[in-house]
């Protein structure tokens, strides 16, 4: 687990944060709605990337 947390894959976290903030802020003009968009975008991106990571990890185990 520690290896995962310190691995290159963690470089994606600041990128997801930045993308969520900018995308969320371009969706509305009202702070509360912007915050909701930021959270929704961040969750959506992390789930999407997480699924891809799990699929690639599983393929990596399967492929010799």
């Amino acid at each position, binding site marked *: 687990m520690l290896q995962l947390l310190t691995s*290159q894959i963690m470089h994606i976290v*600041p990128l997801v944060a*930045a993308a969520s*903030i900018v995308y969320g*802020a*371009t969706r*509305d003009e009202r702070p509360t709605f912007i915050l909701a968009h930021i959270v929704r975008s961040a969750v959506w991106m992390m789930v999407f990337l997480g699924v891809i990571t799990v699929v690639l990890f599983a393929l990596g185990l399967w492929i010799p």
Partner: protein
Amino acid sequence: MVFYESPKGTVRVELGNRYLAAFYAWLLPGAGHFYQGRYTKGLVFSLTILTTYFVGFWLGDGRVVYASWKTNDVRWQFVVQCMVGAPTFPAIIQAVNAKENVAPLWIRNYRYPANDGTHTAFSRITDPAELTRLGKRKIPDGFMAAPFGMVTTTEPDVLSAWHAELGHNFDIATLYTFVAGLLNLLVIYDALAGPGMYFEGSEDDDDDDKKPDA
């Protein structure tokens, strides 16, 4: 001015001269929103995009943002990176300079040539005496300049030396600066046309939810 109307309320967005705002937004992330008086969003965009860009710049030791259309080194990523605006201008200046076959400006360090025989080709020169010994044979690394000399796929060159020194950080840094450019495209559009707001149910009830220009 753009205003958005829905049963939940009205949002008015003053865009001013939207084309000028879009230009400012490109020139410096967030500047277009400051011009429009949208200070909070301007600050958020400015901090987020510039932080992403400069973290990438730092991870890549300032070498990942450069303009080059040389054989084997077509830096297509720069087209997106330059959407961050002014912070990428030195790379454009270096590219114009390189086109005139002039040595790069703002030299950061020098490297050994390929055929020196005493040191690894293209490794960094750290000994000042070596600079004198090599004379004009030493290879310059300019700030935000493309790798000096030819780039090949079979022989060592300056670009391969950069990759060897930076490891995976070269790619991560390229990604960070690239994403910063992509995000500023969204910001430019937001300055040009206002936020991409929509209201749930607007497709079924056009009279209640509309986005007119005024």
